Every structure is written in C-alpha cells, then in structure tokens.
C-alpha cells in the first residue's frame, strides 16, 4: 500500500482514545501524522510540568485541560484530522455514548482501576469492537520485555509486569514505545478491513 492509499483508507476511520496522558497523547499524535480521519479524545486532567517527561505537550500548555490542548497539538501537525475533545472523567455511560461509532478504542489510562473499568465496559457493551490496551511500561531499558499479544478483540501492548512506583516512574522512552505500538496495532486493524 502506498502512503496515499493508506491515507485514503484511514480518512474514513474513527478512533476513540481514553486518556490523553503518556499513552494517549503519543498514540494520538502518531495516528494524526498518518492521517486518521477522526480522533475522539477524553481526559479530565490538566497539563502539568511533571507530565512533560513523557506526554506530548509543551511548556506553554501547562495548566491547560489536556484533551483540548492535545487537539491543538494535533492540528499543528495535521489540520485535516477531525478531533473531538471531551474534558471528562470517563465512565461506562460516556463509553457507550462517545465511543459507539469508533472503529477501534485505545485504552490509555494511568491507573489500573481505570483500565479495569474501561476494559470490562468495552468487553460488555461492545464485545465485537477492537480494544487496544497499554499494560506495563514503567522504568527504562528492557526493550525485549515489551511485546504484543491478542486474545479475541482485546489487543495487549506492554510488558504486562512493571508497575509504576517512585523508583520505576513512567518516562518517555518506554511509554512512547508502548503508545506507538498501540498506534501500530490500530493501523494493522484498520488497514486490514
């Protein structure tokens, strides 16, 4: 497939991204660069200076709500992407309402509890919809621990082991690896159909 053919196919596709932190911001930017048609972004948080160690924001955006801030970043890269940004703490009702028409959903939360809520909700209400999750990316090094596996409509990217802590923080390289791996899985799903 040429890049032109890829863009033609992607411009009709919509991807929902749950969380605009390290995983969500980097994954969204990768999908925007290759020409995804629509991105639906959700996040309740604001950009803080400590986020800049891994998240796709800039110093002059500190204090801004993340979802609209990410929309502005994306439009500086590719203004043809249609971006719908919701400043919300995603709950099961929002998932049903805002992600219904997405071709793929990307799980990009930080906390395990939030990941569980999203995965259980999507598996229950949209059992056929592909869901790409990021699981385990704290610390640095250990390139070969990061992998991809699939079980049914659930696509898993990460090492599935490392939990964030004060001595194993989430930082740019490994978070970016998993975020871009998620974007790569999204492309594989969308370009196959």
């Amino acid at each position: 497939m040429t890049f032109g053919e890829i863009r033609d196919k992607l411009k009709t596709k919509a991807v929902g991204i749950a969380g605009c932190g390290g995983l969500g911001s980097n994954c969204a930017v990768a999908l925007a660069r290759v020409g995804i048609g629509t991105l639906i972004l959700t996040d309740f948080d604001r950009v803080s200076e400590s986020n800049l160690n891994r998240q796709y924001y800039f110093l002059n955006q500190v204090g801004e709500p993340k979802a609209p801030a990410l929309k502005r970043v994306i439009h500086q890269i590719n203004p043809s992407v249609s971006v719908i940004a919701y400043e919300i703490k995603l709950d099961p009702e929002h998932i049903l309402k805002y992600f219904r028409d997405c071709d793929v959903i990307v799980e990009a939360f930080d906390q395990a509890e939030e990941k569980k809520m999203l995965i259980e909700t999507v598996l229950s209400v949209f059992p056929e919809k592909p869901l790409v999750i990021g699981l385990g990316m704290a610390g640095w090094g250990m390139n070969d621990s990061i992998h991809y596996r699939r079980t049914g409509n659930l696509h898993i990217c990460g090492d599935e082991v490392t939990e964030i802590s004060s001595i194993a923080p989430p930082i740019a390289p490994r978070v970016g690896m998993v975020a871009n791996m998620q974007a790569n899985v999204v492309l594989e799903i969308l370009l196959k159909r």
Partner: protein
Amino acid sequence: MKIVLNNNPEEFDQDVMTVSELLKAKTFTFKMLIVRINGDLIKKDAYNTATIRDKDDVMVLHLVSGG
C-alpha cells in the same frame, strides 16, 4: 482436563474448576484482574461460581498501573 490459559496449553487433574480455584492453583494473587472464559467476561463476583471445563480458552490479565 486440558485448557488453554493465556494462549498456552495447561493440564489439571480436575474435570471442572471455578475461576477462584484456577487462580489459587496458578497462585494468581493480584487484585486487579480481567478474566475471560471462551471470550466471555467473568466479573469478580462470579469467580466462585463460573466454571472452567475441558477445552476452555481462559484469559487472566493482570492490570498494572502506568500510562
């Protein structure tokens, strides 16, 4: 019984076991889990009643924070 657990073949002496029994047998002690049997989501309140039988495809996902 022979089952597939997280894409790998596994064999148990029992003919049937609950999700709780499987988690105990495999010493999966994590709190944040996603369990599916043949694609069906099994929520925590059903771990003591949902059963696993021969040839079932079981997924146990351990959720860790970070993102």
